[in-house]
């Protein structure tokens, strides 16, 4: 037993719910394992029950449903990046994810895991926030949809209830939008963001007609910046922009970067989006 952890196989979601309902231990879900195994070896996950969900077909699939692209939580980044459907319907996502972690990790890591793990530096989250994605959550009680911008509630905390898991991500397919994504880090790939910023917008000349901006690594969880969006949509001054940004981000100093640098980079990225 690795650090007192126990693995349980499940055949389907209903099997999972039946088994996890009576589980008295802490429990979590094991999909691709790229985050969970690091947490096991650092003893951040111990004496827990791990439900192995990697083979569940109910969590797989990339499809178009009405005006939405729906990606199963168990799909790997490799599958998403190489999906012709993603490339044709939401090219922003596949183009921006090319430098996610490394090709080796892309072949194992899942989009559901990236969201559920809840890291403030998760690469997929700012992109999905800028795309105004919904997450589909599933439990024994059935499914519910939550806007991704309302999913996180704190550092590695979310609205997920015990026994509930991320089933899919739903992205509205939009035509005629422009995209901006920049991940600032110490290497081009296989790296963790110091700051990341994603935006989906449309412009008439210099003026924004529509705009959604999301940032990662600047708060306890990745988030949209509604105040900054409002200033930019209203054509506000640089001072107003800086104030809005100050009100919405709380960068920290850690081993990867410092707070002041992160703030300046965020300002610069927003300015390059504006100009």
């Amino acid at each position, binding site marked *: 037993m690795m650090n007192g952890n126990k693995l349980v196989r499940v055949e389907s979601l209903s099997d999972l719910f039946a088994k996890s309902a009576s589980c008295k231990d802490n429990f979590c879900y094991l999909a691709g394992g790229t985050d969970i*195994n690091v947490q096991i*070896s650092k003893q951040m996950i111990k004496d827990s029950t791990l439900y*192995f969900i*990697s083979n569940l077909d109910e969590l797989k699939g990339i499809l178009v449903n009405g005006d939405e692209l729906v990606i199963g939580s168990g799909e790997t980044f490799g599958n998403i990046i190489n999906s012709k459907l993603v490339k044709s319907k939401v090219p922003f996502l596949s183009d921006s994810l090319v430098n996610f972690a490394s*090709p*080796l990790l892309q*072949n194992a890591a899942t989009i559901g895991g990236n969201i559920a793990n809840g890291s403030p530096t998760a690469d997929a989250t700012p992109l999905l926030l800028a795309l105004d994605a919904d997450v589909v959550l599933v439990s024994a009680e059935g499914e519910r949809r939550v806007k991704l911008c309302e999913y996180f509630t704190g550092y590695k905390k979310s609205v997920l209830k015990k026994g509930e898991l991320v089933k899919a991500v739903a992205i509205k397919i939009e035509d005629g939008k422009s995209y901006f994504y920049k991940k600032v880090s110490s290497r081009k790939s296989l790296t963790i963001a110091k700051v990341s910023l994603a935006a989906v917008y449309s412009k008439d000349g210099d003026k924004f007609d529509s705009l959604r901006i999301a940032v990662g690594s600047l708060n306890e969880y990745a988030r949209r910046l509604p105040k900054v969006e409002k200033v930019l949509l209203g054509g506000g001054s640089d001072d107003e922009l800086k104030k809005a940004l100050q009100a919405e981000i709380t960068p920290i100093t850690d081993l990867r970067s410092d707070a002041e640098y992160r703030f300046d980079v965020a300002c610069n990225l927003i300015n390059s989006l504006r100009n």
Partner: protein
Amino acid sequence: MIKFNLNGKDVSVDADPLKSLVRVLREDLELTGTKIGCAEGECGACTVLFEGKPVTSCTMNLIHAEGKDVKTVEWVAASKLGEVIKKAFYEENAVQCGFCFPGFMVTTYHYISSGGTDDRESIKRALSGNVCRCTGYEKIISAVQRACNDAKGVK
């Protein structure tokens, strides 16, 4: 007992299903070509082909392999393309200490066999999950370029 196909043969392993795949390969199946470097998915020394795609076997558990197809550097090295890759790395002096080489070898095998070209930028991207700390990447990239060209017609 967990059963899977390893290097073309069916194997069964009696070990903790949460044991990391690289440790199962090395300790239970005595295939020590696959190396443990960082043990957290960053260095690529443990790269194996999982269902034909390169992954870091240190971030996978034995359970992931159940019923699947896993190929290690031992299989890759014995293949015709593996021979071409080894020769190209030798010719370009692209292996110094050799610790990262099994991982580079597996990733390069996948890159070439899935149609990768000798374009240096494409090679860099494909190899970006494999870290080398002594030879330097320029020689490694040149070796992969050479292998791409030498591999034409080799299956």
